[in-house]
């Protein structure tokens, strides 16, 4: 079980600094999705890659100590329901399913475009958590199988 404990000290130190920059970049991409290229899908994949970076550098046990994987899966499942809830709110307030019921604001402002940033954030949570949980399950499955056969 030597390999599952992560990589060398150099990789760990670099990861400790660079993960926060990657997360920051992902959040920037998500929040500016209605002004510049990017959006919920791209930002979600970036955040999943940041989690993946920690998992590859520090090993699976480190992630399991800090994050509850079941909670991530719950977050992913509930964000799909949240998307639906925003749509039904639009039906109640704006008069149409998924209508843009918040005020549009001024063009080129960060806080503008009504429900678009909200939906961007929901989609990013969904994509990032879903992809990370899949990769996590793939790697854990690999470990189980190797342990069983030998």
């Amino acid at each position, binding site marked *: 079980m030597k390999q599952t404990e992560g990589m060398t000290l150099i990789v760990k130190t670099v990861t400790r600094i660079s993960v926060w920059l990657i997360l920051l970049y992902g959040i920037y991409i998500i929040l500016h999705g*209605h*002004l510049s290229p990017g959006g919920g*899908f791209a930002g979600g994949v970036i955040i999943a890659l940041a989690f993946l970076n920690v998992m590859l550098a520090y090993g699976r046990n480190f992630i399991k100590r800090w994050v509850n994987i079941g909670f991530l899966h719950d977050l992913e499942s509930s964000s799909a329901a949240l998307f639906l809830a925003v749509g039904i709110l639009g039906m109640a307030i704006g008069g149409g399913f998924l209508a843009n019921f918040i005020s*549009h604001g*001024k063009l080129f402002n960060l806080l503008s475009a009504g429900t*678009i940033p909200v939906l961007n954030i929901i989609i990013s949570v969904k994509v990032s958590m879903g992809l990370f*949980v899949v990769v996590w399950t*793939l*790697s854990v*499955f690999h470990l189980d199988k190797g342990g069983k056969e030998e």
Partner: protein
Amino acid sequence: MPVETWLIFILGFMILGSIIALELKDLLSAVISIGIVGLGVSLAFLFLQALDLAIVQFLFEIFALIILVRAFIGKEYHIQEPSRSHIVQSVVTIVVLLLILVMSINMFKALPSFGHPIFSTAKHYVENGGRETGAANIVTAIILDYRAYDTLGEVTVLFTAILGALTILRTKKSNGLAGGDNEAN
């Protein structure tokens, strides 16, 4: 150089990379050669002025590479030598596909030439998108405002695909995600 010349160059590289990826025996080299194709698509999106797509395709390629390497480049997988495909079958397939390619050239001649789009439905979105939704990025305005119902369906499909992967991978003795039972052994 015009855009078309660049695209021909990139597409040539992508075809070469895909053939190499399919014909190589070594799995790691094949997966890396698929990277040529995916990053070539990302570069082509940049030349075609699809910036959102270029970012998403780039990240997609990295993620797919990590998944494939993580899953397949294991210790015992590459020991198994898959049997070579039948030579007659390959030759027949190549001949039929070449025939399809030659016969389809007439169809591509009938299309308007490159740079003159067929679609003209999006004029309303381009002209009124900024005023009606308040978003400067028209692509985001379309996927989250004009056609948000489409995106809801997409989120559902993604959710189902991920749920399917988790269900397939679930081990028998665990009663939830595979993460919980790892401490026992």
